[in-house]
């Protein structure tokens, strides 16, 4: 664009030349409009093909084989899948994960929503409260694991100390108890977290007119909440529901750091099973079968949620 200053001195174009130039420009514009979007999404397309589509198909194939990376895969038909359901360890991990999903996902949604509603009341010190509210979420997993082990520790732990201080006879061995341990992980992860931030952002987008209108109609705060705020938040609820569902199926960092999945598989979750069978035992075929079962479960749940969402999610302007 540095040559703009020279254009005044350039000879005038003949009409035909001018036309040709216009045509060329139009062509270039058409080219840009058609091709440029694909240039923009080319990395995305390559990523999907190389790191999503191929691995999904590959793991489908390998789920019917015995494969340890070092030797070529051997076709065994449905054996991996049959073994899965006979293995009590696998069944327990699946049970733990489903329990985790069923309790922790709705719990997290409710807590996140309540926190966001609370932190949306225009009181003094709001900024400070919002900042404090996200502090627990900023403690990295490894740090949180260390603190949690300490808090739940049977001998020196905070929980048992508090129970003793209150004179309650509920002292437990907590993380060392194979039945108790999964509930600790389930309840520990019921947090607003990032979902709370998303609800909070959603609350900022509810038009003030709706609140005014509801006030004029004489609605109580409770009625306003049920009839205005919650329906307007449903797109955010759907987003949070889907992302936390998928996150819940992948949950394993906490148990892995704190208990390693023990004791006696009490805190082994499905994702850890996939990791262990693939990268500790090198049973890639087995891991692929595990992954595919997870895949099918997720697809069924996600499709169900999507189908139902038509009846409960409200999108402004249709």
């Amino acid at each position, binding site marked *: 664009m540095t040559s703009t200053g020279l254009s005044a001195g350039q000879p005038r174009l003949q009409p035909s030349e001018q036309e040709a130039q216009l045509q060329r420009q139009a062509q270039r514009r058409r080219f840009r409009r058609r091709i440029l979007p694909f240039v923009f999404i080319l990395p995305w397309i390559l990523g999907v093909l190389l790191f999503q589509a191929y691995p999904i198909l590959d793991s489908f194939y390998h789920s019917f084989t015995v494969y340890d990376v070092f030797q070529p895969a051997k076709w065994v038909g449905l054996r991996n899948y049959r073994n899965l359901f006979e293995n009590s360890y696998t069944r327990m991990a699946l049970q733990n994960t489903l329990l985790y999903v069923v309790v922790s996902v709705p719990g997290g949604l409710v807590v996140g929503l309540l926190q966001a509603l609370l932190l949306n009341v225009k009181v003094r010190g709001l900024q400070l409260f919002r900042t404090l509210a996200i502090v627990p979420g900023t403690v*990295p997993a490894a740090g949180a694991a260390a603190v949690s082990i300490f*808090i739940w520790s049977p001998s020196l732990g905070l929980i048992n100390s508090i129970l003793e201080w209150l004179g309650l006879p509920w002292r437990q061995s907590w993380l060392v108890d194979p039945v108790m341990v999964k509930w600790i992980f389930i309840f520990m992860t019921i947090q607003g977290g990032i979902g709370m931030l998303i609800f909070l952002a959603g609350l900022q987008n509810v038009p003030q007119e709706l609140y005014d209108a509801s006030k004029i109609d004489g609605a109580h705060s409770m009625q306003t909440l049920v009839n205005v705020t919650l329906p307007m938040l449903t797109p955010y609820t759907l987003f949070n529901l889907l992302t936390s569902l998928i996150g819940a199926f992948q949950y394993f960092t906490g148990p892995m750091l704190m208990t390693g999945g023990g004791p006696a598989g009490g805190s082994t979750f499905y994702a850890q099973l996939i990791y262990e069978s693939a990268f500790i035992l090198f049973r890639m075929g087995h891991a692929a079968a595990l992954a595919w079962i997870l895949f099918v479960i997720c697809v069924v749940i996600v499709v169900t949620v999507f189908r139902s969402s038509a009846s409960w999610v409200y999108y402004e302007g249709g």
Partner: protein
Amino acid sequence: MASLRPMQAAALPGNRYFLGMRTRRFIQHTLAYVLIAAFLIVALMPVAWMFGTSFKTLDQLRITVPIQWIPNPVTFENYVKGWAVRDWPHFLRNTLFLAVFVGVPTMASCTLAAYAFARMRFRGSEALMLINISLMLIPDQVTLVPRFVMMARMGWVGTWLPAIIPSMLALNPAMVFVLRQFFRAIPNDLSDAARIDGCHELGIFWRIVVPLSRPILALQIVLITSWAWNDLLFSLLYLKDKSMQTLTLAMQSFLGYRGDTAWGQMMAMSVLMSLPMMVLAYFGQRYFTEGFTLSGIKG
């Protein structure tokens, strides 16, 4: 809550209405304060315990009645000793590497793709977006093993390439989706005006859409950094080499290696590990909620 009916209130804008509103507001605010305080106390208890314990001496670790939240005397010994046990700056550097090597290429490729999905018309864009949404909902574990085998075949395990290459290819469907939603809400008038002024598509992207999307981009930076600070799976698979280990792996081995007597040190190191995230979250959160409340750009 004793509330006046609005019709009455509108008819009598006198003293009673004023008082009624005030008492009502007072009750609501007090209730809000009580609830917020209750929730913050429960949520912050573990963090407070972590902070407190990190300054305690060994014999203060015993259960005391009542529970001692604030240590007396305060000791910095845990920090000194815990710091000496591992080469923490080394692990911190690796964690930062992970955040940058994943973050920068991901942000670049995902914003470009999201821009095309949101604001350019092309064949099959709807179908491709549907694919993106479906991919968002597939757990990582499904593609985990084949991806690892692929990387291993390429000889990339033990290098930073498994972090960099997939990130360059927009391998973050959730980010593409969220950014696309945000970009879509930016009014077209601005980009149309720029186009008439002779601005090309990349210029519109860089000069108009990106600056207007700062809040959401800031959120993405916070999310990626916090991923790097929390990740275990990726680190276990690709960063096992001592020279590449991240803080999470270092903490994991620290947890396994130290006995009951080292709680103070572990808490001290957890505090140190959390501090950068707290600072980042503080600024990110301000930027984020501010951005959403102030920028009234909605279609």
